C-alpha cells in the first residue's frame, strides 16, 4: 500500500507541473468564472434560475470537454513517459507492477477530478456568499456524476495506454474512441432508427451502453425527470429502470466500465513489455 501511495504522490507532483494540467484547470475554473461573469445565475431557462441554472450549464459543458480531455491527457502522458524512458528508469526501482499501475490511476484520478470539483465547489461558495440558494441534492448528484465520468474515461485511457506502443498511436486511438462515443449519441441513433436500419431496442441498448449518452441522459433527468426531450426512448428507459433506478444506473454502469477497462489495462500491462 505504501508503494501505491508513493506512486500516486509521484504522479500527482508530475501532473501538477505539466502544462496540460495548467490548461485543464484553467478551462474548468474559467468556465465557472465565465458563467458567473455572464450573469447566468440571473437568467431563467426551463424554470431554472440561480445556482441550479449554472450547475446545469456547467455539467453540460463538462460532459463535452472532460471525456476527451481525460482521454488525451492520460494516453499522452502515460505513452509519452514510456517513450521518453521514464518507465525504463522508474520501473527499475523495486516497485510492484500493481502498485505502479494502480498508484498511477489513483494519482491521476485525484488530479483529473480535483479541478472539476473545485470549480463547482467555488461556484457553491460564491453563491453562498451572495445568498443564492444552493440546490444541494443537485450539487451532490452532479458531483457523483462527474466523479464517475472521470473514473470511466480514466479507466478507458489507461487501457488504451496499455495497448498502444507509441504516443501517436495512443492519441489516435483515444480520439477514435471518443469519436465513436460521440457518433452513437441519441440523435444519430434516432436517425438510424428512422431509416429503419436498426430496431429501436438495439438502438436504445447501444445508447445505454454509451457512457457519454448515459451521463447526458442522467444530467437531463435532473431537470426533466420524465425525459420528455428524449421522445419515445424515454418510455423504454423509464420502464426499464424508473427515475431513481436510472440515476443509480448512471453512476454504477460507467464506474463499472471504467474499473473494467482499467483492470484489462493492468492485465495487459503486467503481461507485456514495460518500457
Amino acid at each position, binding site marked *: 500500500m505504501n508503494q501505491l501511495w508513493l506512486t500516486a504522490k*509521484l504522479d500527482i507532483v508530475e501532473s501538477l507541473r505539466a502544462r496540460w494540467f495548467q490548461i485543464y484547470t484553467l478551462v474548468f475554473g474559467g468556465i465557472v468564472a465565465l458563467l458567473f461573469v455572464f450573469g447566468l445565475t440571473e437568467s431563467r431557462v426551463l424554470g431554472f434560475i440561480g445556482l441550479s441554472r449554472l450547475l446545469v450549464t456547467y455539467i453540460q459543458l463538462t460532459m463535452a470537454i472532460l471525456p476527451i480531455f481525460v482521454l488525451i491527457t492520460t494516453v499522452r502522458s502515460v505513452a509519452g513517459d514510456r517513450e521518453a*524512458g521514464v518507465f525504463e*528508469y*522508474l520501473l527499475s526501482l523495486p*516497485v510492484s507492477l500493481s502498485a505502479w499501475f494502480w498508484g498511477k490511476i489513483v494519482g491521476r484520478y485525484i488530479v483529473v477530478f480535483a479541478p472539476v470539483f473545485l470549480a463547482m465547489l467555488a461556484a457553491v461558495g460564491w453563491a453562498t456568499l451572495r445568498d443564492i440558494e444552493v440546490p444541494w441534492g443537485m450539487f451532490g448528484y452532479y458531483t457523483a456524476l462527474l466523479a464517475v465520468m472521470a473514473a470511466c474515461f480514466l479507466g478507458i485511457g489507461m487501457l488504451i495506454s496499455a495497448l498502444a506502443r507509441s504516443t501517436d498511436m495512443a492519441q489516435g486511438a483515444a480520439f477514435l474512441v471518443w469519436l465513436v462515443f460521440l457518433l452513437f449519441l441519441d440523435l444519430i441513433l434516432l436517425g438510424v432508427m428512422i431509416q429503419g436500419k436498426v430496431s429501436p431496442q438495439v438502438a436504445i441498448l447501444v445508447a445505454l451502453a454509451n457512457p457519454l449518452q448515459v451521463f447526458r441522459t442522467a444530467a437531463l433527468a435532473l431537470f426533466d425527470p420524465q425525459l420528455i426531450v428524449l421522445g419515445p426512448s424515454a418510455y423504454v428507459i423509464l420502464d426499464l429502470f424508473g427515475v431513481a433506478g436510472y440515476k443509480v444506473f448512471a453512476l454504477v454502469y460507467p464506474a463499472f466500465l471504467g474499473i473494467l477497462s482499467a483492470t484489462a489495462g493492468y492485465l495487459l500491462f503486467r503481461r507485456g513489455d514495460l*518500457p
Partner: protein
Amino acid sequence: MIRFQNVAKTFRRARVLDGINLEIGLGERVALIGSNGAGKTTLIRCLLGEYTHDGEVAIDGLDPRTNRTTVLGNIGFVPQLPPPLKMPVGQLIDFSASLCGTDPQHIKGIAQRLGLDVDAVLSRQFVRLSGGMKQKLLIAVALGRDATVLVMDEPAANLDPEARKIFFELLAERQHNTTMIISSHRLNEVSTLVNRVVELDLGKVVLDDKVADDVSLAGILACRIVVKRAEPAFAKALGAWNFVDQGDGLVWEGTVSGPDRLRFHGMVARYIALISDISLNEAAN
C-alpha cells in the same frame, strides 16, 4: 549469481536477442559492449525484468519478472539517457529511498561526494538539471543503497574528471561484494573499469573474455607534463583535469584516476605535438 540461459527476444519479426547464455559471478565487473542494435539495452531490460522473453534470467536463482521487488531491491541501475522527470530532486531521492528501504541522507551523501550540491537543487525539477548533475544524481540513487548488482549504461559519459575520479573510488569501495555490468558502445570507454568483456553482435555473444585486472579502481597516477610552448587550449583542457601550472604554462602537474588513464591519454594525444616530456607514475592511495 546472474544467469542468462538461452535468452531470446523478438520484436515483431526482428530477433534482437538470439539465445544468450551467460553466467556472471559475484565481484565480476563486466563490460557489455557492441554497436547500436547489438542487443545491449534489450539484455539489460530483460535483466531488470522489464521485457518478457524466451529462456531464463535469474539473479540469485530468482526471476526478476516474478520477484520484482526482491530482485530489484538488490540492483542499482544507471541509464544512459536520464529520464525527463518533472518531479523535484528531493522527491526523486525520497521516492527512491522509500522504495529501496534506504536513508535519503545516504543518497544525498554520495551525490555530495560526486560534487553535486544537493541542498541547492532539492526543489528544482530533475529535468531542469544539467546533464552532469542528472548523471551524478542517478549514480547517487544507484549507489546509495545496498545493491549487490550494479547495471550502468555509460555511467561516466557526462561526468567531469574530478567526479569520475570519485565515481571510480565509489565503485572501488564495493567491488568485492558487488557485481557490475557496464554497458558501452566502445570498449576503450570502460576497459579500465572491468575484468571481463562480453561483446554482443546481432543479439549473440561474439566475445566473452577475461581481461587483465591490473588497474585498481581506486588507483591514482601522478602526472607531469612539459610542453614546448604555452598553449591556451591545452591549458584549458588540463585545467578541466585539475592540473596545476608550475611555471608560465610550460610545466603542468596533477593526478589522474587509474581507470581514467585511457581517457586522459586520449585528451593528451590531441596536443601531442606540443609535448616535450610526459610522465605517469602510480601514486600511493
